[in-house]
């Protein structure tokens, strides 16, 4: 990473006795698409609001190109923002909404006209220029909000769950638009969402929030394939957690004993564990296979239910100790007549992660 463009330093925000953000430090390079992902109440929106200037942090700092933003009021921060709710000005036309930030900056009329046309072209709403926001669909309103937020070429664009009010199909469509606009404009985007699929689809990097702290920062791939904690593993994608006893660790790979007594070696250890320590082994549903391979470990299960989901099957199975696990092999890996029987399933120990219990 080069010299940080936007820098969040030890940010803390308390509301009375409740601390919403504990200690967030993050460097964001220019042009990055960074997503704050986390459950509601994890502090991601509060962090975003501190950058926008809606909330003064209790301590810590927000710096843009080395200069602190904290003393700068919202209207002088020159930051673009798209909100969760529709915040277009209902008495102004689409074109006047997009022109608003330029008008308050007293830009010359010719420049305003050109910029409004460019922005409406960017969000593909040229023909709606003279409509009022009330006459647009939710998706169109958010695209106008995007045009308005980008009209004054802000160095940073904040997006606070902008798609949460839209239905799934529209959400996917606008996600595509946002990716394209990020590519075309190169603006640095900070995006808040609680939807992990949205985060994986859009972001260069994801900061996963939990209880006012960042649990892990990394690419979607990092978070999915190399989760730092069991919370990350549980939040991103689906996962099975099996109770296990730790026996030994060598070079980051551990040997464990599962509850049914079988011993598995070669799983990835997240942390240092003592001999005999109670741990949890995380295995992704799609990491299970139906065929043995030279490196695979095996697990005895009773198959309870098999459902066909197109490219994958979804199997509910029960381990010897009665725990239900979720298995999703590709449809071709298992014939439907295999269902409802006792059998072995297989997993690659290198794709299984050991976490403290």
């Amino acid at each position, binding site marked *: 990473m080069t010299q940080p463009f936007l820098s969040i330093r030890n940010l803390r925000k308390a509301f009375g006795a409740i601390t919403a953000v504990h200690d967030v430090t993050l460097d964001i390079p220019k042009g990055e698409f960074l997503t704050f992902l986390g459950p509601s109440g994890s502090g991601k929106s509060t962090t975003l609001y501190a950058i*926008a*200037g*809606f909330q003064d942090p209790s301590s810590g700092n927000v710096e843009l190109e080395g200069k602190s933003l904290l003393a700068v*009021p*919202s*209207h*002088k*921060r*020159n*930051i*673009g*923002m798209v*909100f969760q*709710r529709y*915040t*277009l*000005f*209902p*008495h102004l036309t689409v074109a006047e909404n997009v022109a*608003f*930030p330029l*008008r*308050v*900056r007293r830009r010359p009329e010719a420049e305003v006209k050109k910029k409004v046309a460019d922005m409406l072209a960017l969000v593909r709403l040229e023909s709606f220029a003279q409509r*009022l*926001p*009330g*006459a647009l669909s939710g998706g169109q309103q958010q695209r106008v*909000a995007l045009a*308005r*937020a980008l009209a*004054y070429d802000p160095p940073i664009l904040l997006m606070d769950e902008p798609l949460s009010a839209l239905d799934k199909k529209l959400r996917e469509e606008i996600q595509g638009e946002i990716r394209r606009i990020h590519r075309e404009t190169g603006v640095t985007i900070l995006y808040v969402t609680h939807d992990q699929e949205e985060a994986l689809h859009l972001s260069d990097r994801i900061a996963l929030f939990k209880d006012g702290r960042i649990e892990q920062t990394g690419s979607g791939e990092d978070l999915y394939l190399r989760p730092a904690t069991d919370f990350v593993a549980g939040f991103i994608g689906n996962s099975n957690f099996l109770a296990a006893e730790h026996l030994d660790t060598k070079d980051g790979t551990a040997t464990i004993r599962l509850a049914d007594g079988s011993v598995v070696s070669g799983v990835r250890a997240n942390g240092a564990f003592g001999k005999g320590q109670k741990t949890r082994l995380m295995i992704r549903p799609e990491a299970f296979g139906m065929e043995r391979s030279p490196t695979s470990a095996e697990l005895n299960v009773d198959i309870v239910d098999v459902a066909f989901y197109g490219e994958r099957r979804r199997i509910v199975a029960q381990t010897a100790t009665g725990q239900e696990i979720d298995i999703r092999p590709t449809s071709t890996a298992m014939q439907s007549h295999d269902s409802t029987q006792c059998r072995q399933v297989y997993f690659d120990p290198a794709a299984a992660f050991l976490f403290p219990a």
Partner: protein
Amino acid sequence: MSVETRQSLPTFRMPAGFNGLLPALVLIVLFFVVPVLALLLRSVTEPEPGLQNYATLLGDGTYARVFFNTFLVASVVTIVTVLVAFPVAWMLAIMPSALASIVFGIIILSMWTNLLTRTYAWMVLLQRTGVINRTLMAIGVIDQPLPLINNLTGVTIGMVYIMLPFMILPLVGTLRAIDPMTLRAAALCGASPFQAFHRILLPLSLPGIAAGGLMVFVMSLGYFVTPALLGGTSNMMLAEMIAQMIQSLLNWGLGSAAAFILLVVTMALYALQLRLVGARRMSGGA
């Protein structure tokens, strides 16, 4: 519904439930329409048939002064009421709702207090040797008592006080419908607090200002008690003049004509407001 069933109905029928509305209609005609027509009739028949009452009222400088005064007082009261009510309404709109209902209670309670009591209370406060003048003189702000009563100032203060709830209530409704996030969005777009106010908040609250403003203006035009008690002889208002014409001079014709002019002006203003706000609503989308 198919076309046949519709054709099978009689060609003309009273709207359903019309019979139930009849008593109410009789009431309206008897107590509202008939008196207004009687008023109109009197104004063109007494003391003799013709439009001379209207000619007198509109041609005479003394009466013209009363009309002018009435409009002046009503305008000043309306403007001052809007200026005072706006911050109060905004505060009520953004306040936690529990606290807001307490403040609302106080405002409504003042509306329920007897009008005469409240106006006499202002007399006690505003007169030469009243609480306000004495306090200001005691702390040395002024040497001479301020002329706060029996003039336009007195009438304005007393009437604004009485009219405030009629302005605040519709305005709070309008302001509450404005999403505070809209103003945050305006701020991030680079609008200073003043720009956000005059480009966003003010235009969005115009329907409320128009509704409350018209109500206050129309009520002020016909107001009697407060101008009579707090106003001076030199700025008589129309209602006082009508009372004088009918009670002291027994000139029913002239009094009726003045009342009818007031009614026409009021209705014209109401029609104008309906047009303006209606047009705005349609173009405003929301």
